């Protein structure tokens, strides 16, 4: 009634707001305000673990709300809300569930780090909540403008997080680089929205799809241009080649727990919107955009796997590995089928937990000052700290696609989707890239468990050093196996294109001696986070049915 009167009074039409449809978003965004309010009203600074506990609590609340919504959707079917701008369907509630899980785990794996680095305060946690809210909204948004807003809500906290370790120069540089490139990609994205609006007359995903299915455009240059720019914008967010240049530098420079978070949540949000826009708005044009993605997938999986081979910095290596994973997730989108979307979503689920856990371990091993990320520091970790090394080995093997882990079923699912869509070449290239990637995961595992003495650098690496990457390949690759020469050459080429601002690891190639990493120094919070990530990886690897079912209910509301 009130709204009616207002409507009569002004010409502004206010839509009916269905609050249950956006309950998880409201919880996490409200949660961030709560965190800020608590930190403002408490006279003394609270210990970081209090904020961490609160954030996990907010995550659990959001998870419950998401599951309630999931139940509603299973019972009552999907619906649109708030002036057709929010989709509540199997897909969006799954994205919400996943984002909630990320929010539960993130503070667990970060608390120990912030305690050690004496970077107290609630900023990290409040920012994480906001970012998760953005990711949820990206999964649910049914309007390109809303997707853009959600993208910014997702991204801006990440830029701040990258620069959170204000005492370290590398952190500031990473933040600046991330912000500049992120802003640039957002601009491209908005321009893409404008062009699509120009061509179709709407920004609503459903209306775009309806328009395109009823009309044949005589000149579709504008539409294609818009689609191309949207692909570029999304590719920046999910770090697909050739829009990946920022990833290794940002991952290397940012505080490690923030890297784990941004690696998971940015991909969750980015892929959620990418999948929804292209599968639900442009299905009629799939013959146009599929070949583009075909190329992107191939170069993404290959560059990710090959460039990671030459990395000596574990954070950088994981950055390239996450690029490789992005290629795999795109494989599901490239298939442009419901199976593909479900596969991508399953992959996102598995990947998010793996990458959070992996960076959780890296944060511990990095040591005071967050600088010990050379692979040398992992030498003999299996002996000094068997539990931590065991968890890391398991997470890495799962990333490589080892059987009876979620990583295997994730790869299986997307490759299955690709094969079902008759993209045999893509499937084979992706699997071969997985085999290449296994090499560098195994190298870390070998360094942790098998090798005790440092291996001298092979002579062939002199050329690489000359190519302009002294910091990264200074001591080059250990066991000179079968892939080195080719990998070295192409990796060098790729790296040479990305000038490195951050050179923090040049001096810290030796294992830092300030404190030995032992199982004992790992905080209980980190253990809890690792147990959850590793446990989920193994349990859902041995008993995949529930998670597969879950992903298969991710029907988009077409």
């Amino acid at each position, binding site marked *: 009634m009130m709204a009616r009167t207002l409507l009569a009074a002004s010409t502004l039409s206010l839509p009916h707001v269905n609050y249950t449809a956006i309950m998880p978003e409201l919880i996490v965004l409200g949660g961030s305000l709560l965190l800020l309010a608590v930190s403002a009203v408490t006279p003394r600074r609270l210990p970081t673990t209090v904020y961490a506990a609160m954030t996990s609590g907010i995550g659990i609340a959001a998870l419950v709300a998401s599951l309630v919504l999931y139940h509603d959707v299973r019972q009552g079917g999907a619906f649109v809300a708030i002036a057709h701008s929010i989709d509540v369907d199997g897909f969006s509630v799954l994205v919400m569930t996943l984002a909630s899980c990320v929010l539960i785990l993130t503070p667990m794996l970060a608390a120990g780090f912030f305690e050690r680095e004496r970077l107290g305060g609630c900023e990290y946690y409040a920012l994480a909540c906001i970012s998760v809210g953005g990711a949820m909204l990206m999964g649910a948004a049914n309007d390109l403008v809303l997707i853009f807003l959600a993208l910014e809500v997702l991204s801006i906290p990440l830029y701040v997080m990258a620069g959170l370790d204000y005492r370290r120069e590398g952190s500031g540089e990473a933040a600046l680089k991330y912000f500049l490139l992120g802003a640039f990609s957002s601009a491209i994205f908005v321009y893409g929205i404008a062009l699509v609006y120009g061509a179709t007359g709407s920004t609503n995903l459903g209306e775009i799809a309806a328009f395109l299915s009823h009309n044949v455009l005589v000149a579709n240059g504008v539409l294609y241009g818009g689609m191309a720019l949207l692909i570029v914008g999304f590719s920046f967010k999910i770090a697909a080649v050739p829009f990946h240049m920022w990833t290794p530098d940002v991952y290397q420079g940012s505080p490690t727990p923030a890297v784990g978070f941004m690696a998971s949540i940015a991909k969750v949000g980015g892929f959620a919107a990418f999948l929804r826009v292209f599968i639900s708005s442009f299905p009629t044009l799939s013959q146009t955009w599929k070949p583009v993605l075909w190329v992107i997938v191939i170069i993404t999986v290959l560059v990710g796997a090959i460039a990671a081979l030459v990395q000596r910095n574990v954070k950088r290596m994981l950055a390239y590995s996450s690029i490789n994973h992005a290629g795999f997730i795109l494989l599901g989108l490239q298939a442009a089928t419901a199976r593909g979307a479900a596969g991508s979503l399953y992959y996102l689920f598995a990947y998010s937990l793996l990458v959070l856990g992996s960076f959780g371990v890296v944060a511990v091993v990095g040591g005071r000052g967050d600088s010990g990320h050379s692979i040398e520091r992992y030498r003999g970790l299996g002996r000094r700290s068997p539990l931590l090394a065991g968890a890391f080995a398991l997470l890495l*093997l799962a990333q490589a696609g*080892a*059987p*009876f882990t979620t990583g*295997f*079923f994730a790869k*299986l*699912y997307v*490759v*299955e989707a690709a*094969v*079902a869509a008759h993209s*045999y070449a893509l*499937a*084979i290239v992706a*699997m*071969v890239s*997985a*085999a290449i990637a*296994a*090499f560098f995961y*195994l*190298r870390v*595992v*070998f360094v942790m*468990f*098998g*090798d005790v003495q440092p*291996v001298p650098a092979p002579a062939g690496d002199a050329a690489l050093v000359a190519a302009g990457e002294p910091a990264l390949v200074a001591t080059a690759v*250990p*066991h*000179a*196996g*079968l*892939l080195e020469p080719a990998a070295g050459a192409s990796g060098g080429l790729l790296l040479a294109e990305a000038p490195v601002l951050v050179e923090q690891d040049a001096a810290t190639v030796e294992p830092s001696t300030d404190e030995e990493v032992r199982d004992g120094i790992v905080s209980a919070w980190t253990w809890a986070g690792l147990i959850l990530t590793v446990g989920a990886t193994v349990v859902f690897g041995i008993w*995949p*049915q529930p998670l*597969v*079912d879950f*992903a*298969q209910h991710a029907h988009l509301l077409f």
Partner: protein
Amino acid sequence: MPLHALAALVLAVRTQTGLAGPANTAPFPFLNTLILVPAAAALVILFVPKKQTALIRTIGLVAAMGVLGIAAAVLDQFKTSTAGYQLVETHPFASGLGISWNVGVDGVSLFLVLMVAVLFPIALAGATEKENTKAFTVWVLIAEVGCMGSFLSLDLLLFFLFFELTLIPVYFLMVGWGRERRGPAATKFFLYTFAGSAFLLVGILSLVFIHASQSGVTTFDVIQLAHTHLSGTADVVLFLAFTAAFAVKAPMFPFHTWSPDAYATSPAGGVVVLAAVMAKLGTYGIVRFDLSLFPHAVVVLAPLLLSLGVAGIIYGGIVAAAQRDLGRLVAYSSLAHMGFIILGAFALTGEALSGAVLQMVNHGLYTAALFLLIAMIYRRRGTTDVRNLGGLQRKAPMMAAVFTLVMLASIGVPGLNGFIGEFLILAGTFLTHRWWAIVALVGVVLAAVYLLWGYQQVFHGPSADAAADERSGTRLFRDLTLAEGLVMAPLVVLIVFLGVYPQPVLARITPTVDHIINQVEAVAHPHIPALGRASLSAHTTPAPTRQPHHFTLHAVLASQTIVGIGDPGAGTAAVQGRIPTKVASR
């Protein structure tokens, strides 16, 4: 007869545990237990404190012996003269993706399962790795899970999961307990096999979707997938994708380059798993999947694969003769033996295929024995280089005797197990592919050359040079200890037993093998009325009375005459395996 003793033991166990009962009331899940027991033991050991090495070793051994007991029960339950899968157990696993937990055993897998069950306790007991017993035992048990699962899976994807799983424990065994230069060898091994698997996975998925588009059902069930109608090209391409993975794993020439390094640097326990058991996953995959899923491609490409097999036999033999390291020598000799198995698999006669299956088991037994002996020498001398060894016979007569016996089995001397397999393969191949068999015969001679040469270098001749003696700190070279003797004893017994009395084994292998050959023949010669591919779907169909193959008569005559020289029982067994008769018992 040890077999009777085993059966008695099984019977005792069954009456004790109340397992005995009418066959059709909820049978005991034997096959699942085979997979789950080692997995459970590995899990238990994870929670035992690291210091309790004796307890850990006991748990590991008890679990592995338990698996052996269950495997013996499976042998007891197994119905002879039956071609289909037996003791099948099906559970939902990831039905959303069409994957089910579907396990069963037939004539091809039965003895491989038994071989796994026999070799793992030996690998655990024979392990000389003193440090970090806990991790070692866990990895060996996980490897057993992987191998058992691979041999038992009737679901292609479940097979793939276990097939891949075997890589991880073996990698860690090599990395953690291997000899010098193990890092590159382990990585090379992992990457080769992983890359091969990439093709296998894509091949599996393609086959499944081709099947799904025809039947509307997404399933990885081997039996159902055998009904897929494949175009000529798809058949060949998928066959190659599958074979790529199996050829790397076996290893088959020319995909073998990882194996000498891997075999030579692995620890004793690891190499038993790797060379004796895991290598069979490749040849098993060929027999189980290639032959039943792509019969058309098998017929078309048989000459190519036979040639690769023969090339492996000759190349492996020649290169083995040039090796100075015992580990590498046996690795190349394994390559030659794998060549024989490939030959048997693609000769497409019942005799050759039976021989190939039997030879997989034989090769597992004597390779395990050889590598264990090599590890014993390595432990005493710190080297396996023949130039630093010599004259060991005088110092260790028992070891020399065991080595001689195992080596003779590997050469294929009548009366020992290697002979039966090799003979059946060559005889069967001769019937259909004469020239390949003739060239392969050269390999038999080569085997005698390099193995006898290696034996001479190590056990005869002048005593090891002074430098080697000084390095080990003593001029003494201990003979087999009691523990080592106990580890070797079961292998020696089995090598001799299978050599003189293979009839019970062949009787169980032959029905399944004949059935597989029938199917392939139905595709190769469609004008000969034969039972269609559909008949495999019945789990316990009696073996179809097969159209008399025009070569069979010759085979009977040939094998009876020639095998008869070695042992009268073996000759009849070789060709009449289908007839469950006691005539051959002596």
